[in-house]
């Protein structure tokens, strides 16, 4: 990876939300259970996909409890559908809150997207049109969810493969205004910024420059798949150098914040994923050293 990244001139922002910096963690995935339970490897924290553990019982919850005995766990959801126009699913929220009590996650995140309409749950992170109406709709729903969960809630920017004819503003303006309006946190997925910058031809640093960085609760990093005329957010590979550069640039603005490497397809040995977190750690230290000097 390259290390010649222009840092931002301003010192890191003080996070607004009183959440800990857990260091550099990985997503908890089933193929790694054997390694984790047999060897208790050193991992700063695990992030779980909330929905995988919103079940009545059985082995998933037993495994989760084993992980909770040894590691901090943060919760990340994929099915809330904060931007959907169907009513909020209160059964879902009740199950989420129950799980929050189990994991003691200091914050909860999900995506800035819609996931369902009145017919179908699409199980996808579908982008929203960047309109004033959509912005107010999402912000109002975030308020409700955050109040109900009684925890800091963070919204993650998604990768997108289309844009809407109706959009009235840029993605970063929409993202920034939603979190300000909703008074919530951000999960900044640096790979998603990169993927969308390729798919929609914008300058990714412009995006990062315009975010209220004091609201960032957590970072995501991941690999992707370049299909030629667009990039698909597959989480199936190493983080690419351009994304590491963006991460360093963003860290210069936010200071050290819990950072998570996601790997969901063609999942390699845990050590390979942990090696990615070590790269993140080196970058964080470099940024800190720069600001200290």
């Amino acid at each position, binding site marked *: 990876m390259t290390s010649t990244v222009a840092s931002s001139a301003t010192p890191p922002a003080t996070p607004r939300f009183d959440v800990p910096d857990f260091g550099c963690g990985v997503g908890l995935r089933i193929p790694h259970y054997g390694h984790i339970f047999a060897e208790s490897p050193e991992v700063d924290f695990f992030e779980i996909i909330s929905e995988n553990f919103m079940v009545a019982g059985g082995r998933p919850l037993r495994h989760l409890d084993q992980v909770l005995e040894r590691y901090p766990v943060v919760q990340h959801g994929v099915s809330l559908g904060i931007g959907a126009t169907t009513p909020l699913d209160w059964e879902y929220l009740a199950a989420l809150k129950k799980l929050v009590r189990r994991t003691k996650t200091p914050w909860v995140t999900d995506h800035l997207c819609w996931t369902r309409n*009145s017919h179908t749950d699409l199980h996808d992170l579908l982008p929203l049109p960047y309109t004033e109406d959509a912005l107010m709709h999402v912000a109002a729903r975030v308020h409700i969810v955050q109040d109900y969960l009684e925890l800091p809630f963070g919204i993650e920017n998604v990768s997108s493969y289309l844009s809407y004819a109706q959009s009235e503003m840029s993605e970063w303006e929409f993202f920034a205004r939603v979190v300000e309006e909703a008074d919530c946190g951000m999960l900044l997925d640096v790979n998603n910024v990169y993927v969308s910058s390729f798919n929609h031809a914008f300058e990714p640093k412009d995006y990062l420059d315009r975010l209220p960085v004091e609201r960032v609760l957590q970072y995501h990093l991941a690999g992707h798949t370049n299909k030629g005329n667009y990039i698909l957010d597959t989480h199936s590979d190493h983080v690419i150098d351009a994304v590491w550069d963006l991460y360093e640039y963003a860290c210069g603005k936010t200071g050290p914040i819990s950072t998570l490497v996601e790997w969901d397809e063609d999942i390699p040995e845990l050590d390979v994923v942990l090696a990615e977190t070590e790269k993140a750690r080196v970058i964080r230290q470099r940024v800190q050293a720069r600001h200290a000097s």
Partner: protein
Amino acid sequence: MPPERTDGPEAHAEPQPPKQLRALQEDLGQAFAQFESIVGHNDHGPVADRWVSPNRSMSARERADIYREQFWLRHRDALYEDYPALSHYLGDSGFEQFCQDYLRAHPPRSFTLRDLGNDTARFAASYDGFESGRAAAARDLARFELAFVDLFDGAELPHADPEKMATVSPEAWATARVVLHPRLVLFAFAYPVHGYRTAVRGDGPDPERDLRPEANWLAMYRSHDLKVHILPIEQRQYVLLNALRGDVSLLDACEKVAATGSDTDHDQLGETLRKWFHSWARRGWIVDVLTDASG
């Protein structure tokens, strides 16, 4: 920072969704959740043109079609994962046709993909799209594999109190009702689905796609350590367990079994039943014994 509010939905006035946003999601959601390319589609093509912008290298329809394709791949892969034996038996093209027809009839409506196959066994039971001669085994496989998903992460349930069972007097056993574990699943199959699934999932070479009829009975259950087990049982055990599940007395249930056996069986039935109940209790299949005394 979040204000203190623990109350439920009634306390939270949800905003009315913006009309245009709702129309966009209804229109595009339908275009994404189907299996024909949006690019040349008579209905969904114009929908994409209305909502989606083209970019330098892709038309609005091509961009929308990325999401449609992802919808299909995601749900197809989830079904492949939960139905390894059924998919092997039907072959890729047969299984993928089954998946599309199933998803058309039962579009996903749960937040979790875990529930995606909830209706597969019912759907397969009346599905007429199976390759000729494959329907019966496919239906057995669908029932069998769905049960795994259900049993894997169901709630914990109370286990039997062995002391209580020991206190049931010999006279009381005749009229007693035996309560089986709600998560004990009993199957009567016409095809050897268990061995087939084990072979498909094993490290060895994949089995032939063919399955020859062979009547068999299975019990599927979850042990204290939360592992899912499958145990072959005799037809008579199946009859007895099913009768017990039907809430008849132990005596009536045993008479049903006696009616199925030969004279020799009949002579030995008492001893056989004792052994069966002993092993069922040990496995946690029996969670209670209700006698007149226990109400």
